[in-house]
């Protein structure tokens, strides 16, 4: 979550929203979230799990290119 926030602070092209999945199960179900942390990028489930900063940024760039 914090990496997403850091990226949003560093780039105006990135927006970041944290969602408490058990409190908003409809949103989680809509994206097929079954485990956390789950990262949805541009409305698509992009990856699941904690990753390093370089991997997080690489995943973000890949998701942005889709």
């Amino acid at each position: 979550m914090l990496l997403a926030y850091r990226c949003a602070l560093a780039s105006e092209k990135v927006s970041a929203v944290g969602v408490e999945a058990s409190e908003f199960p409809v949103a989680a179900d809509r994206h097929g979230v079954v485990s956390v942390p789950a990262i949805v990028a541009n409305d698509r489930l992009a990856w699941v799990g904690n990753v390093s900063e370089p991997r997080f940024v690489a995943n973000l760039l890949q998701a942005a290119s889709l």
Partner: protein
Amino acid sequence: MELGESEREAIRGLFGGLERDVPVLLELGPEASSVSVLAGGRELDFGAETQSLLEQIASLSDRVTLTVSETDDPGPWPRTTIAERLVYQGLPWGYELSTLVYAIAEAGREATSLSDSSLAALAALERDISLEVFVTPT
């Protein structure tokens, strides 16, 4: 939920490094999909608990200002917005409370914690990207 003195002290220390003001907006209202959670034999009021936690956090630094707004429209409430950029939907408890505290600290600093290589990669972004990070309290 009340922050312990050790937590308050840790947050004060972290907020001591704030270099600019950080506005925090809490939006409250009826949740679009109602979920009940029992804690200690009572039903949690997510909005009231979030407001209590954020009031406690904001009281630990003059640079952190909390504004609370309420609506009658159903939505993803409670919703917390830090520095008009960073959004969190739900009650920030457990590890996610720490995340919000660190997010405030990050927003209040001039320098980013990201590496130079990450900043260079982000600078190459040509399209907007919207991230939603689903978490659960731990």
